[in-house]
């Protein structure tokens, strides 16, 4: 399958995502922010970085890039869009996902390993994981505190759209002791149609035992299975 990887000025996880995709045995194509062509991507990754320096607000300027018009159309048509770190921030700014990512409650950048509990498997990204499974995936961000109003949080919980929550290594709840102070310990969410995922942690940094964890590879494999039609959650079923 083919992953399209968006490159905005200031993006830096593009190369890491390409490495992870190729390690998983798939094709990666880079999508330049000034272009509109998604080059036949089966899944578009909006990778981490500081698009446009993250000046004003993280993701605020990137959402207006020509590429984002195509990504928005692609998502509306049921295409898989995966925002990682800065990509999650861009998806929220573009209103493809609800809520916002604000400054970490510590007021400091955090680069550290985290443990994520898979809260739902009914989407292409986590279909390959067991519900309740704990994945070790690192974070690296200064603005990753997920905030939304009560109504939105209730909706996300009710519709089981929280994809990942920060937990302890053994899967127990941390009750607010997260790297960023996210509401409901949220690390990732999906949209209503479950074809758009935003997550702050970096799965592309957790695809080899040499780098400390290979748990992130499960997500790449899961997407590939879904796209090829033999996954638990085929793309067709969500549209």
């Amino acid at each position, binding site marked *: 399958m083919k992953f399209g990887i968006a490159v905005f000025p200031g993006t830096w996880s593009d190369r890491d995502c390409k490495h992870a995709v190729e390690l998983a045995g798939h094709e990666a194509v880079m999508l330049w922010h000034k272009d509109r062509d998604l080059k036949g991507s089966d899944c578009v990754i909006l990778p981490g970085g500081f698009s*446009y*320096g993250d*000046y*004003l607000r993280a993701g605020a*300027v990137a959402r*207006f890039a020509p590429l984002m018009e195509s990504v928005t159309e692609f998502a509306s048509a049921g295409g898989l869009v995966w925002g990682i770190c800065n990509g999650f921030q861009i998806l929220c700014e573009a209103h493809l996902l609800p809520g916002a990512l604000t400054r970490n409650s510590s007021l400091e950048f955090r680069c550290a390993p985290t443990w994520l509990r898979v809260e739902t498997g009914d989407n292409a990204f986590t279909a390959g994981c067991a519900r309740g499974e704990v994945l070790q995936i690192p974070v690296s961000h200064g603005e990753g505190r997920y905030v939304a109003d009560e109504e939105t949080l209730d909706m996300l919980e009710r519709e089981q759209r929280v994809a990942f929550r920060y937990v302890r290594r053994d899967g127990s709840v941390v009750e607010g002791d997260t790297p960023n102070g996210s509401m409901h310990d949220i690390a990732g969410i999906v949209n209503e149609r479950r074809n758009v995922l935003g997550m702050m942690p970096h799965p592309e940094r957790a695809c080899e035992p040499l780098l400390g964890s290979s748990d992130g590879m499960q997500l790449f494999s899961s997407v590939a299975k879904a796209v090829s039609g033999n996954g638990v959650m085929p793309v067709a079923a969500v549209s």
Partner: protein
Amino acid sequence: MTFAVEVVVVLKPVVNDPQGLVVRDGLHRLGFPGVRSVRVGKHLELEVEGDDEAEVRAQVEAMCEQLLRNTVIEDSRIGSVSTLSGKAL
């Protein structure tokens, strides 16, 4: 008496403002070619106890020098000062 004081902190004119440049370029791309310059600063709203406006202004000036602005690269100015509560003048 309590006064509401607005303080604006901006980079000194001579200091490079990368954030302002990106916002300006972003506005150009969105179809606002007339934007000549953007300088991004901070807006603070303070509620300060004091005897009168002059005394409060002096307090806030001192706060600017000591904490609110980075005297190396930033300027500050006090915007509006208004009475919030307390006895009428």
